[in-house]
């Protein structure tokens, strides 16, 4: 086993996913199967290889730090699941 059910619970908590028991079981089996299939990666000698995070053919483009988009509070709040005037509403987080 590459991964246990306890690890799946721990990862789900990190990822903010609430899993049903059946999902936990399925994901344990799936991740185990996937990691098993990916195990051959460990056989590649990468001792002298630097990692690639991004294929940077060109240097990152810079621009002036100027505001180009006007405030659009209402347009952006239209999609809010819950709002209060010009604020997003969320459950109370401070007792």
């Amino acid at each position, binding site marked *: 086993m590459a*991964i246990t059910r306890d*690890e*799946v619970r721990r*990862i*789900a908590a*990190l*990822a*903010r*996913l*609430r*899993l*049903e028991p059946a*999902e936990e079981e*399925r*994901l344990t089996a*799936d*991740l185990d*199967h*996937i990691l098993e*299939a*990916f195990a*051959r*990666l*460990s056989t*590649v000698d*990468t001792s002298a*290889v*630097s*990692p*690639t*995070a*991004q*294929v940077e*053919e*060109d240097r*990152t*483009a*810079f*621009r002036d730090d100027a505001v*180009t988009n006007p405030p*659009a509070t209402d*347009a*952006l709040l*239209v*999609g*809010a*699941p*819950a709002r209060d005037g010009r604020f*997003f509403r*969320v*459950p*109370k*987080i401070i007792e």
Partner: protein
Amino acid sequence: MPEALHDLSLREAVTRVRQRAVSAADVTRAALARIAAVDTGIGAFLTLNEVEAIAAAEAIDRRIAAGQDPGSLAGIPIAVKDNICTAGLRTTAGSRILERFVPAFDATVTARLRAAGAVVVGKANCDEFGMGSSTENSALGTTRNPWDPARVPGGSSGGSAVAVAAREAYGALGTDTGGSVRLPSAFCGVVGLKPTYGRVSRYGVIAYASSLDQVGPLARDVADVAVLLQAIAGHDAADSTASPRPVPSYAAALDGKVKGLRLGLPREYFVEGMQPEVESAVRAAVDHLANLGAIIEPVSLPHTEYAIATYYLIATAEASSNLARYDGVRYGLREARAVLGEMYEATRARGFGAEVKRRIMLGTYALSAGYYDAYYLKAQQVRTLIRMDFQKVFDMCDALVTPVSPTTAFRLGEKTADPVTMYLSDIFTISVNLAGLPALALPCGADKAGLPIGLQVIGRPFDEETVLRVGHAYEQSTEWHRRRPAP
């Protein structure tokens, strides 16, 4: 019988609109009528834009009447993949969590299409957040292959490819993170291009894996794809990874000159277990290019066998981070709970489908303490080796020719039980994303059931011209791109 409007190529339709042989409004109405007639059986679209589309087309007609330049895509109905933002038009990325999301702004590619005169007729179905190879992971609809409705269209840009193949639109935009433009293009018998990473802006594209994602055009022939690429390519101040390199004239590259071009044939892309008809069709296409004067060189990309694992660790790691934004606070679905953390967890549990959860879990695992070096860092190192493989062969070759996929379109449900089997569908397309290269998929045959077979042409970074040149030269002397599914 006169040719129906929807059967015209994109270029022919633009010419007729610009010459006022037909109005843009009539072209758009014809496309909407075609969609109404055929889409129920194939499900290319999640959302239609009927009223706005006709209004946009009428605006193009007014520009033409006033003697103004209506643009290179004047009045042309286009389908846009539903993970690309369209201001005022629902954009779901195929996910329940965004089922009612209406963007306040256009993606840069959408804005550029509109500026060129294109008419967005609707939003094309896709695997949820682009995560899939068959479009079966869409939470909002089933898309079927127009060549055989029992088969998948490929994914994740399945709706985009189907809209083009079924002549519901003259062209489409898709996104390609691991093959998501090229695989559905091959399965549906259309032409699709994944541009070089950085050639096209990602601003307003709903992120899956940011170091791999790229927007690409689909159309019914190479020249139409070139017209669409011309409209969307180039630097964008809103995306710092969009290259400031000048954009060449892609139409000028379609000169038929493949004589003396060196085309590499990577041996790792002809594997055991491939559908024999795919191998023979691709080899016949290679022979054809040799007859046109190209020089065929056998080459090797030795790290190809590690590409699937490398991709699925890097892409899922990036996805786990990108999808952290869906928390039920600012937009999208919210599952109301009294406690904030529970709201996050319940919202994400209800809003994400099984494959998205699987990828978030895999990516979170690969990034988590104790596993980072063995999985994520290792994958990034192997990514370097995969990229170096390509750099070496491009010292000897101008482009590579390969199959797009080891098989033709598979049946709906055939690969959903085992995620690894589904992941293997991407075996010939994902290395290109890891290396950031441009690659074209175009039709080069059919299997005995009549299902299309795709040829892939891979180029050097920012050398879209050569892959388009090769594809176009092939098309000029073959007929595969003219095959159309009934009706």
